Structure formats: structure tokens, C-alpha cells
């Protein structure tokens, strides 16, 4: 399997605060990676560096072999299209209803016809179980429903990879399941995914690989079985014992 994303010597500082330190990793096509680690360890920053919402201070991020840094805005936009992103706080556009949220980028960026965009949006809403909410505005939906719309919106661009930043952390507990279910279906359909999460159950069941992050670097990685049963580093053992108790 070829590398879809390659991270080379990635570093990121905010002023004096060095948040990411010399990260070298790669994501293969079809892989599901779960990134876990303590709060403030740099997980979000790492994920945001992958599609350059945060510009790396040092190093490189390659997508399908193309560098995402040092390129023009329009080249970057073309690459970002292929990297869907889902945020903790959903970030749906409140000035548009559900189906408009989903159709916007396909219409404006891919410039497909309205019929085609509508057709595709409806399929996606079906897929996330919200076919009946097409005309509603985001404010009138529950958190779980909003997050599923956000996933559908990202999928509408037919991305090669989906990046999730704690997609269930802002949800009431009873809504976490419906979102994880959609993500699990997505993983099973073969989508490449990088998921920052605190849902250990999901990580165990769905991930191909766990990346454990602390102090701005990936300290340890492995399959869910080996990582959760026999964590090698002390930081990971510490982290796991804290969240499992």
C-alpha cells in the first residue's frame, strides 16, 4: 500500500511554545489511525498541520507525494479538497440549511451541476440517517445530528482521507453512539481516517493503528491489541491507567 500522507520532521511552535517536535510518520491508503494522548499534548495541532490549517514551523507534509507547504493558495485548495475534516464543534454554516451546507463546496469548488449536487447530498444524508432533515437549519438539530451532517458535508467532496478532531467530545453521552456508528461504517467502507479521540472503545475496535502522543511527539504506536495490553512507554502506561480507572 502506498503512503497517502507522509509527515517529515514536522515541528510547530507558537512563539516560544514548541508544541510539535520532529514528527516522522505516514498514513497508508485505507488505514484507520487513532491518535490518543493527554490534553495539551498537541493532537489537534498535529491534525491541523495535516491539511495546513496550521502552517508547520519546520518539516514537511506530503499528500499523495505532493508537498502541502510552499505552494500557492489555489494549489493548496486543490489538495485540501481531498482531505475532509470534522471538528469537535461541528462548525456547520448557520446561514444555510442542511442540504445547502452539504452542497456548497461541491457547487462552488467542484462546480458540478445543482441536480448532481442535490442527488449526492441526498445519498449522503441517507447514509448518515438524516434524510428527513434536509431542509432544516443546523440550530434546530441536536449535537449528534449536527455532527453527522458535518461528516456528510466533508464526504460530499469525495475526499481521499478524513480527519476527525474529537468528533464526539462536545456531545451529550446519549448521542456519542450515533456518530461513532457512522464513523465505523465509514471505516468499514475502506475510507482512510485519522481520528483524534478519547473514545477508547472505538479506538480498540476500529483502529488499525494507535498513535500515542505526549509532549508534542508520537511516543509509541502499535495495533490496538498490543498497545492497550502491553504499552511499552511509561507515559502510555500512566495515561492508560488514568483513563481506564
Amino acid at each position, binding site marked *: 500500500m502506498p503512503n497517502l500522507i507522509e509527515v517529515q520532521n514536522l515541528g510547530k511552535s507558537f512563539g516560544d511554545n514548541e508544541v510539535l517536535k520532529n514528527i516522522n510518520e505516514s498514513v497508508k491508503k485505507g488505514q484507520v489511525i487513532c491518535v490518543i494522548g493527554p490534553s495539551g499534548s498537541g493532537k489537534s495541532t498535529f491534525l491541523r498541520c495535516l*491539511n495546513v*490549517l496550521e502552517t508547520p514551523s519546520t518539516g514537511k507534509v506530503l499528500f499523495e507525494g505532493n508537498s502541502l507547504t510552499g505552494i500557492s*493558495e*489555489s494549489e493548496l*485548495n*486543490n489538495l*485540501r*479538497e*481531498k*482531505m*475532509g*475534516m470534522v*471538528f469537535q*464543534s461541528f*462548525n*456547520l*454554516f*448557520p*446561514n444555510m440549511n442542511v442540504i445547502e451546507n452539504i452542497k*456548497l*463546496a461541491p457547487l*462552488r*469548488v467542484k462546480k458540478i451541476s445543482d441536480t448532481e449536487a442535490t442527488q449526492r447530498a441526498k445519498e449522503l444524508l441517507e447514509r448518515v440517517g438524516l434524510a428527513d432533515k434536509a431542509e432544516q437549519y443546523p440550530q434546530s438539530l441536536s449535537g449528534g445530528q449536527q455532527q453527522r451532517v*458535518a461528516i456528510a*458535508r*466533508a464526504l460530499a*467532496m469525495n475526499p481521499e482521507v478524513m*480527519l476527525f478532531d474529537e468528533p464526539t467530545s462536545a456531545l451529550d453521552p446519549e448521542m456519542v453512539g450515533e456518530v461513532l456508528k457512522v464513523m465505523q461504517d465509514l471505516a468499514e467502507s475502506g475510507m482512510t481516517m485519522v481520528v483524534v479521540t478519547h473514545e477508547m472503545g472505538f479506538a480498540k475496535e476500529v483502529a488499525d493503528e494507535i498513535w500515542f502522543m505526549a509532549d508534542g511527539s508520537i511516543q509509541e504506536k502499535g495495533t490496538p491489541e498490543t498497545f492497550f495490553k502491553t504499552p511499552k512507554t511509561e507515559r502510555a502506561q500512566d495515561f492508560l491507567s488514568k483513563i481506564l480507572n
Partner: protein
Amino acid sequence: MKKNKFFLFIIIFLLALIIPFTHVKAASDNYLQKVKDKGTLVVGTSADYPPYEFTAKENGKTKYVGLDISIAERFAKDIGVKLKIRNMNFDSLLVALETHKIDMVIAGMNPTPERKTSVAFSKIYYTGNQYMLINKSDAARFKKIKDFKGQTIGAQTGSLQYSLVKQQMKGNDVKGLAKLNDLVIALQSHKVNAVAMEEATAKAFAENNRNLKVINPGFDIDASQTGSAIGFSKGADSLVTAANKTIDEIKKDNLINKKYIPAAAKNMTANSKKKSMMNYWTYFAKGIEYTLIITVVSVFFGFVLGTLFALMRLSRSKFVHGLAVSYIEFVRGTPLMVQVMFVYFGVGAVIQSLPALVAGIIAVSLNSAAYVAEVIRSGIESIPSGQTEASRSLGMSQKETYRYIIIPQALKNIWPALGNEFVTLIKESSIVSIIGVTDLMYQMQLVQSATYKGVIPIFITMVIYFLMTFGLSKVLGYFEGKMKHA
């Protein structure tokens, strides 16, 4: 670094201010030829000074009339061109002449030595005495200059009467106002105890108001200073010569006393017979029309420019950002009145044909743009960064993000503030009246001079402004409600 740029900006701005005034002197005197080439003689006056110049209604149309206007008409005819009257504050006349907005000034103006340093005057065409207008109730108290000890005297700013009072009534306070009408209101409400006025004008006011009286307080007058003459640009000798010829002919036939003053008197009595405000509704209607035109056009351009400045201010380029900040701060830090005058007289000196209405609209738009820019910027900054991130992560460009995501949401948030700016402009635009744009405020002054009534036109104008702003607020409120439900 930032400071330097700001200074540079200020310096450029000041240069722009000075340059227009530095090259106004023509090498040879082709002033008369220029007027003939244009085919029109543009005459500046201050039409609240009967019988010299004032307005009257004829067949429903407002006309400038009075002995000065008759002389100007005759002069234009003599040199074979059309006459165009530009009405403005007396104070602004000489600036307008200097900046070549007008070809000549005829406004009962006395050729004082101070004025002669910057203006070329014709011969004196008419000499009147300097009188005082007082309340009839004070007639027993005030007869001569010495009776006014400790009293406040009103006079038109920049006028001969103003300097007479200053020089010969040293113990008195002088209250200077731009409009005679306002001075008369001040007199009637005892804010001033007398208004120094030229004889004919004072008599006109007294004739039209039972409670006022005219006295001759015995100013010590140098005959050469009390006569009225026509003012031209310094160096416009060809125009002066032509005007002197016309004046000689007028004097030879004694036209001023035989024809012009009687005609003016007729217009004055015609005016005073039509004192009911109903006769002047067309004045107000025209004023409303212009106020609305200025406001609507300025709101539009203010919004477009304001959006531009807001985006510039949010730009990552330090230069573009600095430019926008300098502009916004500068405009917000100077009075609209000064800006209006700067655009009309300053910019107008470069672009000679800039009409007052256009100058007014430009100034108000530019002013509004600075305020709108700040409203829009705050609207844009109030949109959470997550919105931009979501949009950019979908591959949308910065421009598309602004267009489809940020601006629509920002507009919805700032709609009330923008509406407020609209309402504010209706009121603020009244300042353009100082450069002679016939907006509601200006028309009010015309009605005041036509009717010799001070307060009622003010009251009517106030009510009209209120109805406009209140109506607009209601309409905007209705749409605001609609947007909330969308």
C-alpha cells in the same frame, strides 16, 4: 515602522491640501475670454440679504432676485453670456472665488482694504448706510451707539458690520452668525440686543415684522468702505474693466434707484404676503428630495467603500492594513463639516466643474465609509474562526469563504448597526447645506429669508427630519424582524 507610514500618509494628505491652491494664478489675464468661452458667468452670492439678494417664488419656481442679481443679469447680458447663480454662506464666498468655483461675487460686499489684498474689486455701484435692527420694545432705550453699553450685538460673520461693531463698540460683545435670519431669531429671543445691518436690509426686516425697528446708531463710516462692489479673482482685470463699464451705464441711467430697488421691493412684499408655510411646501419637498438623494447615494457608496476598507483593514499586508487604519482614524477624527468643505473647495480647486451636490455626496460617502468599515470589521471579527476553518478544509478559497460564509453571517449581525448609520446620515447630511446643496436644511434657510419667519421653518424642518428618521427606523425594524426569522 508603523508610525513612519502614518506620518507619510499625513504628509501626503497635507500636500494634497496645499497643492490645489498653489497654481491658481494665470500667467496672463484671460479671465474675460474664459468666461466668454464657457458661455456662462458663475456668480456667487448669499441670498438672505434683501433687497440686495434673496429668493422669491414665481410661478411655483424659486428665483434669486434683488438689486445685486439685477446687476449681475445686466453684466452677463453686456458680455454676452448666460448667468448662473451659486448661493452659499457669505463666509464661503471669497474661498469659492479664490478656488475658482465662481467667477465673481456680488453680495452687497464692501471693498475693505483687508478684502482688497485677495480680491479685485469693481467700482462701487451702491452705497447704503449702516443701521441697527432692534426690538420695538427697546426703542426708548437704544438710540445711539453709546446707549448699547454692555449689550450683546449681533452681526453676520465676515461682514463689514461685524468689523464696525468690533472697532467702534469696543465695550460690547459681538455675536457672529453666518445667517441674518438666525441673527434676527437671536434678536427676537433677546440673545442679542441689536443686529448691525445694512440700511436697506434692516428696513426690509422691520417692514416685515411688527416687533422690530430700525435705528441709525451713527457709526463713524469711511465712505469708501460702505459702498458695495463686485469682487473678482485677483488679476482678473479684464473682468473688472468690463464690470466697471456696466456699472457706469447703470449709474448713468440711475437704474438701481429707478428700477432695481423698486423691483426688489415688489418681490419682498410679494414674499411677505405669502407668509403661510403652505405656500412653501415645494421648498420643503425639494429639500426632502435632495436630502434623500444624498443619503441614499451616500449609504450605497459608503457601504461599498466601507466593505472595501474593512477588508483592507483585515488584510495580512501591513501596508494595506496601515492604509485602511490611517484612513479610518483620520476620517473619524475630523468633523464632517470640515470634510465637506475640503472636498468642495480643496478637491474642487483641481476639478473645477465639481458640482456642490457631487462634492457633498463624495464627502458624506467617504465619511460614512469609515464608520461602516468599523461596523463591518466588527461584524466579520464576530464570526467564530471555526467557520473559516470548516470552509477552508472543504477546499474553498479565502475569497469564497468570505463571500458565502463570513459576509452573509456578518451582515445579518450588523444589520441593525448599518440601519442606524442610514438613519444617522439623514441627519448628518444636513451639513452639506453650507456649500449650497439644496437639501432640507438649506431649503429651510430659504423659507426663513422668504418669509421673515425664523422659528416656524425650523420647527417644520425638525418635524420632517423626525418623520424621515422615524419612518426609516420602522421600515428597517420590519426587515430586521424578517431576517431574524429567516
